[in-house]
């Protein structure tokens, strides 16, 4: 009896070992190319939509898309572990130097444009702010909504985490007003939430909250409480949309990038060319981003 059990156990182990080898992905023989795409959480839905459509039209190419933040994608490109890095901010010069030191010269492609919408709770009467006012709110100079024309409520600031390109872009463009020598930082009690969904959730149910995120991530019920932003107190207060981003009247708009390791060739080059084509740019508009001007 005992020896029978032993034989059964050993034969089961052999069977699982055999099953393991035949369960290997057959992509090396079927797909002629495997492209890895990693980085910006802002761009992850867009990259996924592109990947799905491209794989339907080109079944021989296999694409994998992951998020993790622009910082994560760029770090992976610098370490040589990814083919295409998605980034919602430009690579910093230190990152470019490190990539070149690793023998990976990064090549930048602008694949779409995005507006950063500043949102408040629907109960909040404030509907327009200048860049300087938003900077003062987020740096901690203003702590009460009454200082910008709202109710007597404390301001709760929401932000993305530091690995997010959106965070870095907001720091450079809004808090520091585009001035590289400005040392302003986010106030220490800014809540750094790990996802866009967390920000939307808190803004939706907390009347004290102010948050920012890509235009494509603002849900329908918060579209009416998007803040109109002016470059200064005299300028026009502009609501973010495709047209105001394309004519540069909305001051908080940015390019979305894809970086490759060196000049792209073969399947990666075909994919990038497809992304810059009208068909892929139509997907950009569907998802709430701004297509690049042809």
């Amino acid at each position, binding site marked *: 009896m005992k020896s029978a059990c032993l034989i059964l156990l050993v034969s089961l182990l052999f069977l699982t070992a055999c099953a393991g080898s035949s369960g290997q992905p057959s992509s090396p023989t079927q797909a002629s190319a495997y492209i890895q795409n990693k980085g910006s959480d802002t761009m992850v839905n867009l990259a996924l939509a592109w990947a799905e459509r491209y794989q339907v039209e080109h079944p021989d190419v296999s694409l994998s898309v992951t998020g993790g*933040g622009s910082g994560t994608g760029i770090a992976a490109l*610098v*370490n040589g572990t990814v083919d295409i890095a998605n980034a919602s901010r430009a690579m910093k010069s230190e990152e470019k130097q490190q990539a070149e030191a690793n023998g990976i010269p990064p090549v930048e492609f602008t694949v779409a444009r995005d507006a950063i919408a500043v949102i408040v709770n629907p109960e909040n009467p404030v509907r327009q702010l200048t860049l300087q006012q938003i900077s003062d709110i987020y740096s901690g100079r203003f702590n009460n909504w009454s200082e910008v024309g709202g109710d007597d409520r404390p301001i709760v600031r929401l932000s993305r985490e530091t690995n997010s390109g959106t965070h870095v872009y907001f720091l450079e463009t809004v808090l520091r007003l585009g001035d590289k020598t400005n040392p302003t*930082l986010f106030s220490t009690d800014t*809540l*750094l*939430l790990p996802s866009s969904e967390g920000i939307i959730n808190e803004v939706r149910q907390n009347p004290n909250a102010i948050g920012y995120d890509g235009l494509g991530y603002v849900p329908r019920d918060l579209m009416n409480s998007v803040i109109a932003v002016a470059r200064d107190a005299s300028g026009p207060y502009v609501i973010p949309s495709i047209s105001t981003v394309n004519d540069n009247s909305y001051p908080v708009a940015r390019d979305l990038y894809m970086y490759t390791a060196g000049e792209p060739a073969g399947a990666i080059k075909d994919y990038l060319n497809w992304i810059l084509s009208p068909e892929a740019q139509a997907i950009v508009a569907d998802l709430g981003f701004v297509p690049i001007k042809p």
Partner: protein
Amino acid sequence: MDKSLNWRETILTAVVKTCGYSAVVFVILIFFFLLREGIPALAEVKLGDLLAARWYPIENHFGILPLITGSLIVTVGAMLIAIPFGIGTAVFLSEIAPRWMREILKPLVELLGGLPSVVLGFLGIQVLSPFLRVFLDLPTGLTALAGALLLGGIAVPTTVSIAEDALDAVPKSYREGALALGATKWQTIWRVTLPAARSGVLTALMLGIGRTIGETMAVMMVTGNAPVLAVKLTSIFSPVRTMTATIAAEMGEVANGSTHYHVLFFIGLVLFLISLAVNITASSVVFKSRKRAERVLS
């Protein structure tokens, strides 16, 4: 027959010894790995900067003091909840509840302990933090208090399980002796049974603290992750950033070998040393030599 028995003896002894030593070896290896990756942080960042009050790694502000206070305030808050509830439940289950109630309640408590912490975190965002914001009139519900409540809830089942087993293991003769001397039930529990089960209860609390200080997902979702220096008593009502959430949120973006990478490992080292300190303190109490009277009675 004798020879095969000896063979089996030696092999089994060797296997059991390896298992036992491997536990120690793994911990030592982890410690050395943390040292190797974390100590360069001391060389790259001045100690004064490491102990500064501003944590903003993308601009080279590496002050870990807010992170340490964040973890400590959430842990202390959680233990303030877990200790009375945990020990109270354990005492109820082992001393006061009738047998049939115990058979139902104990598996239920252990079921609560099996709940994944990310599910509790989700409940925290959706239910607990709006409730706290409205009930306590706070600017936001994403605070250290929300984290402490959730972690208390996570630590209680662990504490109850082990403390209840420890209380159960106290020999009946102790209780009977106390009752025979005229003690009330509460006096027996408080002055005889609990002190006798002291080592087991302390182990339970130790495990609770260890679980709490290492908890990542739930705190990352409900404490707001704001690197505020939490030293005032009112800091429990403000958002905080724990060491664990920092490592989880930022490890993905660091370039291998950069200063940020080393500082994150240094934070891991600090966490490890805090857990070590808690364990050493607890075991020094647990392994104190028993009084002669205890040895004689048991």
